């Protein structure tokens, strides 16, 4: 299995699009940093206007930690998009290039080939999230320094500077699990449609529709929320509450791991029975 994973990694890291996603992430982060460097003070004064009337705020409010947090908030749709472009391609490119015939006529079984690609997908998501973390954190801390972070979840809460980094890394770990689950969905569609673009469109379309349903907190959609993966993916925000609700987070972790497992099993069954006739 290790040699099959190595082969998949060679294919992945010899492809330009893998580095493009890393590059785009870095550029996005730098744009956010530069934007806030020039207009950050005005923006935060505007956002904090209401509480400025009642409280005296002291210290470095526009700091690197806050910007890292805001960057994660801003890029919640960009990150999954970039990830699924690559992860769907890991599976469907073999069909698009016709190399699926080459792959399946070698001595490895279909199950082994799929597992190697799945592991490669997880490794890519981990790499990508590391790039996200480092590009969110390093330039912003270098430019703006560190400080306490005001967070708007159920009103304003201040996250202490000393606890920010541990929350940030936990968020990234959770996001990695969420992105693996999301990529697994992309994998299932990539194998089903045998085409990257279709798989990416379907999976992003699903994310958008489900996120929209999730915004209706009351009414007929409210009871559906716990069953929507978009609901669980968004739980990373809870790491920035003053008291982190771990049971709720664990619940989402189990949901996302379960979703990954189901996607893998469905893909495995489909792939094993698939006729490569064209």
């Amino acid at each position, binding site marked *: 299995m290790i*040699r*099959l994973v*190595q*082969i998949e990694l*060679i*294919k992945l890291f*010899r*492809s*330009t699009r893998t580095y493009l996603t890393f590059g785009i992430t870095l550029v996005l982060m730098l744009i956010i940093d530069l934007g806030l460097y020039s207009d950050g003070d005005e923006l935060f004064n505007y956002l904090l206007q209401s509480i400025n009337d009642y409280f005296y705020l002291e210290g470095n409010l526009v700091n690197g930690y806050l910007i890292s947090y805001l960057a994660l908030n801003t890029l919640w749709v960009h990150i999954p998009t970039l990830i699924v472009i690559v992860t769907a391609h890991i599976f469907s490119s073999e069909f698009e*290039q*016709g*190399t699926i*015939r*080459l792959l*399946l*006529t*070698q*001595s*490895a*079984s279909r199950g082994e080939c799929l597992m190697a690609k799945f592991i490669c997908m997880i490794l890519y998501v981990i790499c990508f999230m590391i790039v996200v973390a480092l590009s969110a954190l390093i330039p912003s801390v270098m430019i703006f320094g560190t400080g306490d972070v005001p967070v708007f979840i159920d009103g304003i809460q201040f996250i202490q500077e000393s606890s920010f980094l541990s929350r940030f890394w936990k968020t990234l770990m959770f996001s990695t699990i969420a992105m693996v689950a999301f990529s697994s969905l992309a994998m299932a569609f990539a194998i089903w449609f045998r085409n990257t673009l279709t798989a990416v469109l379907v999976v992003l379309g699903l994310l958008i529709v489900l996120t929209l349903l999730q915004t209706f907190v009351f009414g007929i959609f409210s009871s559906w929320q716990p069953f929507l993966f978009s609901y669980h993916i968004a739980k990373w925000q809870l790491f920035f509450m003053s008291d982190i609700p771990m049971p709720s987070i664990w619940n989402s972790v189990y949901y996302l791991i379960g979703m990954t497992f189901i996607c893998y099993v469905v893909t495995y069954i489909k792939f094993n*029975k698939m*006729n*490569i*006739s064209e």
Partner: protein
Amino acid sequence: MNILEVENLSLAYGKQQVLDDISFEFKKGKIIGLLGPNGAGKSSILKVLAGLVFADSGKLKINNQSQTEFHKVKSITGFHIDSPSFYPFLSAKENLYLLMKMNQKQIDIDVLLRKVGLENVGSKKVRFFSTGMKQRLAIAQTLLRSPELLILDEPFNGLDPNGFQDLIDLIQKLNAEGITIVVSSHLLNELEQLAEHFILLHHGKIALDISKKELQKSKNKVEFNFISELTEASIQLLNDKKAEFISENRLILKLNPKEVEQLVLALVHNGNSPVKVETLTLLQEKYLEITV
């Protein structure tokens, strides 16, 4: 000993029956030609053999291993199915290296590239390869596993005459090394000079299953054309051979190759040298029958 046995193989894509109760077997060490017009079912048989497509019914055995033990068989079989496809962003050497690693084999890739005539372009990215170069690379990848059986699907597609002859030479060379080779093609004449056994397919059924030896012994349709008027002796001779006259100077006979030689000599002796003797082998006759 048989290297390949196919028994009552059937396959349908939806309502379209692609293979209909096909059975055949091949002996080790031969070159087998799988013939037929487009859509006859040639590629489908090979895809079933390669494990890319699952047959609806029937039994398959490669080197005495049944379909359930195909993972064992794959290590001694080289497949080139459909048009050659490789990772375009990798060089020829890198493509072969990946496949070698996948098959856990240690093979000198430079030697392999020399064998198929690609030694000078090993470091070139495959996306810049011509069709002929890709066909050669496809053959090279089939040899990575030191196969006992090679399955080549339409390997002559897109080749120029030089590339075509080179490939025929390469296939013959590999066969001389003891490798059994199954070649599918719709190019009848080209396959006729290469293969030792032929299976002609039509609408997913076997229209003809014949060896080259049987073909040589069988009576072929031979057309004779003369310019000069036929002598009495020649007419008598041709009538004895049950010739079918199309015109005064043009006739058709059913003869085997030896009889053709003897008849030509006799006709020359009678003062009638044929200007054209055209033989349509049983295989060509059948092929024409199903394609026209």
